[in-house]
Every structure is written in C-alpha cells, then in structure tokens.
C-alpha cells in the first residue's frame, strides 16, 4: 500500500512537470492552431539560466529564478517574433509545425554552444529534507512545484477568462479574421501566446532543475512528454493538459516500478497511440474549434519547381558524372565516409520526399522506419547468419508491414494528428531499440554487423560502399521520377494540396497516402540497413527522433517535391560539420537555424532556387514558351 502511494506521489511530481509543458502547448495551439514543438526548449533555457545566475553569479534563489525566467522569456520572444509569428501568418499549419521542430533544434544547439554537453543539477529551493507524512516521503521541491504550477494555472485561467486581453486571445483562437476586424493585432496576440508559453516553460524549467539533471538536449524530452500529455488530455484544453500530464506521470512511474524503467517510455507511447487512435481529439476535446470554412487564401500558394525535360536530363547526367569521379579526387581522410553517409541518408530522404514533398503528409518519425530496417537487417545478418541481401529484403518487408499497420491505426487521422502519430511511432521504435536489450544490444548498440555483400562480392571499403549507394540512389531517383512525372505523382500532388478536389476526380485519397507511406518506409528501411552494414554497428542514437528532424531539415533545405533536392540537403548537412571540425559544436544550432530560415525565406530550397536560375537562362525553345506565357 505504502509503496503504491509512494509511486503515486512520484507520478504526481513527474506529471506536474509534464502538465507544465502541456500547458504551454495548449496555449499556443489554442491561439495559433500550431503545435509548437519548441516548447520543451523553453524549460531547458529557464533551467540553464537559473544555473547561470545561481551558481555562476551566486545569486539567491528568488532573484536568480526571476532573472532566469525573464532572460529566457525575452530571448524566446525575440526569436519568436522573427520566426514563429511570420510563420503562423504565412505558412500552412503543417509547415509551421515543421518550423517549430527547427526552432527546437535551434534552441538545443544554442544551449549546446553556451553550456556544453554535460548535465547540470541544482540544489532544491528549500533543502534536501523531504516532507514526511506517515510513511510517504514528499520531496520538498515537489511542494514548490505543485504550489507554483497551481498558481500558474489559476493565473492563466484568470487572464484568459476575466481580462480584455484574454478575451482577445480567445477571439484570435476562434476566428482570426473576425478578431482583426475588432482591431485586435493578430501578430501581437500570436507573439503574446508564444511569450506566455515560453514563460510557463522557463518557470517549469527553474522548478524541475533541482529534481532532474538537465542537459542541452533535454528540451526534446520535455517537448515529447508535454506533447504526449496534451494529446492524451485534448489539444487546446487546459484541464486536459493537466489531467493528461498527471495521468502520464503516474502511468510512467508505475511502469518503471512494475515493469522496467527501460520500458516506461514505451508504455507511455502505447497509451498515447491508443488515445490517438480511439479518441483523436483527446479525453477533453477543447470547446470551440477553429472554423474550417474560413479559407486562408494567402497560404496555399506554392511555386512550380521543374526543369524542362532536356535540361533536366543534362543536369542529371552532369550531376551523376561529377559524383562518379569524386572518389578519384584527392580528399582529406574521412570525407569519403561522410559522402557515403550523405548518400545513405539521401536514400531515406528520397522516401520522405515522396511522402512529404509530393503527398504533403508530414512525418516526424521517419527515422523509426530506418531503425526498423536497420535493426532487422543487422540482427538477421549478425545473429542468424542471413546473407545481407536477404536480410535487407526482409527488413524492407517488415518496414512496409509496420507502415501498413500505422496507416491502419491512423487511417482517420488527418493533418497534424498524422504528424504526431508518426512522431509517436518514431519514439516508440526508439524506446524499443533501447529497451529490448537482448535483441538490439540496448543503449550501447549492436556490434559486429558484417559488411554488405551480394553474390560473394563484399562491399567492405568506403569506396565500394560509395559506388553501391550512388548506384542505388541513381536507380531509385530514376524509378521514382518515372512514377512522379506520370499519373501516380499527379495523384500525390493533388492529394497534397486539396483532398476534396482530388477525391472528386476519383482519387482514392487514403490509398494514395498509404502508398506514399509504404514507399517512404521501404526507402528508410533500405537506408537504415545500409547504414548498419556500412558502419558494422547500429545504436539507437543513430536512428533516433533527432535523425527524423534532421532528415526533414535536409529535405526542406534541398527542396521538397523535387527528388534531387534531398541530395543537396543531405550533402550540406553531413559534409559541413566534417569539413569544419572545429565548428562541430555549432552543427545543431546551424541546422535548426537553416531549417527555420529556409522555410521562411526560401521555401523552394537549394535545388528549387537552382532550377529557378537555370530556367532563367534562355534557350531557343524555352524563350518562346516563356514569351508566350507572358502574353
């Protein structure tokens, strides 16, 4: 009995942390209809600020915590004003979601640059001695946490329900256009909600810093837990955030106690997947949803990025030629290996392009399929002695089965719910890779993976792997281009922009989406297994959720919906840190910043920009076409 109560107390404590993160999610979602994935980073910034003022400057707790919250909030407001606010008014909400993933990466990177990668811990506000009631021990920091979060929730409720500003925020949440007609400055309200969320997050961070050791990438943990909490509770509902957070905290504590702490996450994710499938709107669906009949005309514009056939062919031949002779050139050591990695990742990004660039379905769990493929192939080849080729094929089949299962479970989910379901899937696979130690080798990874070989020919040098992956990539691009330029590609693009209109023309929307998901899963799986065979090793962090975000960054940077674009993205993001080793610490920050900036200012990506330039060079035929089009 005592132990159960003690677990509940632990769960409540943990749940309080989740609830605070969830509250920030709900607030921003209500006002902007965007899931702000950078929410978790606010906590880390707050906590790190606290460390700075309390430990480095030796300030007492109260001034240090106020200074930390003020600094973190101000910084986030500044970043938000130039990124999040224009994104919400300019981009469709799925793109804004990806942009916030970029923001999360950016904040994580900044934390890494400033505070390094070691964990930080702070002393509790009022000593180590816990409060003892009977046999139950409540950590003193838990009381602070409970008291301050209750106060915050109350304050937030009062602000929203009882003040003019709060009414204005709710008006924006419900009908932005009508709110503008009341003279409400929509951008100011978006920024206000973002700032409030940052403040809530920073306060949460300051409060949990003494009970959890935090490091630069803990933001992801808060984002994910907070998001799971809010998705269970009901997006946009404050009561739901709190109940969801506490439910999740208690469930995780019980799982950790009775099963294994390695599986605590897995169970939480299964809980979420269950809620998402059975009750997509969560346990407490928030009251008024945004009107869906108000179409935002400014947001649906999308440029056509396309090279005329002849130029496209010339471009492809030149590109392939350059890539084929690159290994023969003198280059610094390690560069060839990096090139191999870029090509391997490019294969996965190709799949992501079909899913995201063509079919318009945002997947935040693409690395999950890489993991399924990589582990399956590596385990079959290592522990069961399968020939690598057969192992790869089996892995691809398994990934496609997973994709079908996911599609079946999430068939009813649309828009950002699908993105969130894929995120959950990725995390689930992640936690399984860590948890199933006997099978996967757990956190330390799977060692002794043999080299890839086909018919006795072993690809055991980087040079051989390079040509293998280059050939595979070329074949895949050729095949996908065949599909994308004909009926299949048109169906995908139709679904991307207007499902209703596509269905009215006879396109079976869900089947097309599933096909895209299967292709994406198959390619990610292939990429994952090549990754394992190339390194002779596979660990969970090689295919964790950060990798999913990185692949989105590669795709967006290179240019969505172009097939070729992803290559430029993966080359840029893989080679830059290799070439400039000293700056490796900046990699994450730069990646995040690039994703955000490209999304806002160069949505067509590197390759898209290149195509626009190439199309401007007049040739005989196109000049006439151009002149005609001008008429």
């Amino acid at each position, binding site marked *: 009995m005592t132990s159960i109560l003690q677990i509940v107390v632990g769960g409540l404590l943990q749940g309080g942390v989740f609830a605070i993160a969830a509250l920030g999610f709900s607030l921003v979602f209500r006002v902007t209809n965007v899931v702000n994935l950078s929410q978790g980073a606010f906590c880390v910034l707050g906590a790190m600020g606290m460390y700075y003022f309390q430990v480095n400057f030796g300030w007492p707790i109260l001034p240090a915590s106020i200074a930390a919250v003020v600094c973190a909030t101000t910084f986030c407001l500044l970043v938000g004003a130039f990124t999040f606010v224009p994104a919400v008014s300019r981009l469709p909400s799925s793109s804004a979601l990806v942009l916030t993933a970029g923001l999360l990466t950016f904040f994580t990177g900044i934390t890494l640059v400033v505070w390094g990668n070691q964990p930080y811990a702070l002393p509790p506000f009022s000593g180590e001695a816990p409060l003892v009631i009977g046999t139950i021990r409540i950590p003193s920091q838990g009381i602070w946490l409970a008291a301050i979060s209750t106060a915050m929730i109350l304050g937030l409720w009062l602000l929203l329900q009882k003040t*003019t500003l709060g*009414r204005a925020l709710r008006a924006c949440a419900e009908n932005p256009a009508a709110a503008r*007609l*009341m003279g*409400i400055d929509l951008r100011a309200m978006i920024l206000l909600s973002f700032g409030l969320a940052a403040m809530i997050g920073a306060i949460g961070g300051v409060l949990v810093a003494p009970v959890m050791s935090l490091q630069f990438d803990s933001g992801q943990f808060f984002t994910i837990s907070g998001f799971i909490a809010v998705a269970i509770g009901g997006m946009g509902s404050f009561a739901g955030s709190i109940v969801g957070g506490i439910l999740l905290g208690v469930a995780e504590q019980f799982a950790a106690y009775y099963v294994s702490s390695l599986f605590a996450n897995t169970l939480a994710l299964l809980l979420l997947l269950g809620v998402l499938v059975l009750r997509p709107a969560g346990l407490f669906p928030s009251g*008024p949803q945004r009107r869906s009949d108000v179409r935002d005309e400014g947001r649906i514009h999308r440029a056509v990025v396309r090279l005329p056939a002849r130029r496209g062919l010339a471009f492809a031949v030149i590109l392939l030629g350059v890539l084929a002779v690159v290994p023969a050139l003198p280059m610094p050591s390690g560069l060839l290996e990096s090139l191999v990695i870029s090509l391997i990742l490019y294969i996965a990004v190709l799949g992501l392009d079909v899913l995201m660039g063509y079919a318009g379905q945002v997947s935040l769990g693409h690395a999950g399929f890489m993991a399924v493929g990589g582990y399956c192939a590596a385990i079959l080849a290592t522990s069961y002695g399968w020939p690598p080729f057969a192992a790869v094929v089996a892995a691809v089949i398994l990934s496609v089965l997973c994709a079908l299962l996911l599609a079946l479970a999430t068939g009813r989910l649309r828009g950002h719910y699908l993105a969130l379901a894929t995120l959950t899937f990725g995390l689930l696979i992640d936690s399984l890779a860590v948890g199933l130690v006997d099978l996967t080798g757990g956190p330390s990874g799977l060692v002794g993976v043999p080299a890839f070989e086909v018919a006795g020919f072993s690809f055991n040098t980087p040079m051989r792997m390079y040509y293998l992956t280059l050939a595979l990539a070329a074949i895949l691009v050729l095949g996908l281009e065949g599909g994308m330029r004909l009926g299949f590609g048109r169906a995908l693009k139709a679904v991307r922009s207007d499902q209703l209109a596509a269905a009215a023309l006879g396109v079976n929307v869900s089947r097309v989406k599933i096909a895209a998901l299967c292709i994406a899963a198959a390619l990610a799986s292939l990429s994952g297994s090549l990754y394992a065979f190339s390194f002779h090793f596979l660990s969970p962090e090689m295919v964790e959720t950060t990798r999913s975000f990185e692949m989105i960054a590669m795709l967006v940077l290179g240019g969505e919906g172009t097939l070729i674009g992803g290559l430029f993205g993966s080359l840029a993001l893989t080679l830059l840190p290799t070439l400039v080793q000293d700056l490796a610490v900046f990699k994450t920050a730069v990646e995040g910043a690039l994703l955000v900036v490209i999304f806002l200012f160069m949505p067509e990506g590197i390759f898209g920009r290149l195509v626009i330039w190439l199309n401007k060079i007049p040739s005989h035929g196109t000049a006439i076409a151009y002149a005609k089009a001008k008429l």
Partner: protein
Amino acid sequence: MTLELHRLSAGYGGMDVIHDIDLIVRPREIVSLVGANGAGKSTLLKTISGLTATRSGTMTFNGKRIEAAPTATRIHYGIVHVPEGRQIFTGLSVSENLELGAFIHRHHSDEADAQRAEVVIRFPVLRERLPDVAGNLSGGQQQMLAIGRGLMSRPKLLMLDEPSLGLAPRLVTEIFELIVSLRDQGLAILLSEQNAQLSLAIADRGYVIENGRVALTGSGQELLRSRDVADRYLGVGGRIESSSAQRKNEISRRLQDLMRI
C-alpha cells in the same frame, strides 16, 4: 466624414481581384455595392477595412490617407466592417462578443459601457441572451449580434457584407429597416448585397461591380430602373446566336472525338 477611393487595386497571392476602383461614400448616405458572386465586392470591403492589402491607388477618410494604415487605426477613425457570414465568436458569450467589439476602446471602459447599453436597447433580443454562448443564437439573432458588435466600435462608416445571407424574408426586411434607421441617425453605410433589388431600393447611391471593376454607378433608383441591371439580374438569354451555334457544333464534334480516347 467621407471615404474616397481613387484607382484602388487589391488582391491575393499573385493576382489583383479588384482593379482601379473609384468610389465615394458621404456622410448620412447608404451606398450599395451590387454584383455577382465573385465580382469582388467582399474583397473591396476587406481592402477598405485593411484585411486585404492595397496594391495600388489611394484611400482617404476625412482627408487622411489610410491605405497603409493597420485595421486597428481604421477602426479608430470609425471604419467598421461587419463581415460576410456574420463571423461572430460562437464559443464566446453574447456579452463577450459585444465587449470585443469595443476592444479598441478598452481603455475607456465607461464609454464602452454606455455604448453597450445603447446597443442592447436597440436589440432587445440580445439583452435576454447576454450570458448565453453566441453559437446557440438563431441565424437572425447572430446577424443582429454581428451588427451590434460592429456598433460597439462606434463607427462613423459601417460596412455590411451580405447581411441578409440565409435569413428568412421577414428577417431580411427587419435588417434592412435597421440599416435605414442607422443611416437616419447619422451613420454612413456601405452595403454589399446579392439582393440587388432590395439593397438598391434603400440606397442613396449604388455601384455595380463586375469582375473587380465598377461597371456602372448612379443613384439607387436610377440603377433599379436601368436596363443593364435588370438584364444582369433577371437574365435575358438568347445570346447563343447562329454563329455560336456553329461553333458549338464544332466543339461538340471535337469533344466527341476526344472522349473516345
């Protein structure tokens, strides 16, 4: 107060929806915009209220240039827009909706209170339902609320976009009587309506908008009697002449061939 548009163009994305509009609304005047769906009437109102950005041309209100001013400033000057489809905040209470109407006067709460009392007297039906969620009002009541919310901003020029949309004939009459009485109390009204007959009947002046341009302008009565307007709304037909009949047959033959592919 006088609103004056000179060669005004505006649109979304890559295109202009309204082109070179010249329009004037004087004090104590009902001006009706009539025209087909998609002609650009709503875009014109949105441009005047600042929801849609002006591409070129000028807009003055009481001699002040306003084409670059944000919506809030225009409301301060007295330009208030009651949008098509009412767009009330259905999840908020009736009284919260009214208070949001006075958002720009939030620092003068007593004036807002006085204005609210006035609005509630004008719409007794709203008084009974002040604490109710606005989404539960009937269509007619929602329209009253939308207009009431607009009045809370203390307009000098009230722009109404399709106030009769989806209302039963009796309610339509009521709304139009209300519009006339608002004019008589000193407001200028810019009214966009599908129901040309009715809106021209109460209008001092009218503009016929076609494909984003002013096709015709005159007093309400002139436009009502005009043959062009009648044609447009009553339809004359018989435009497929013999030359087009030939073209039609030719197209039809080609279509038949193509459909076999």
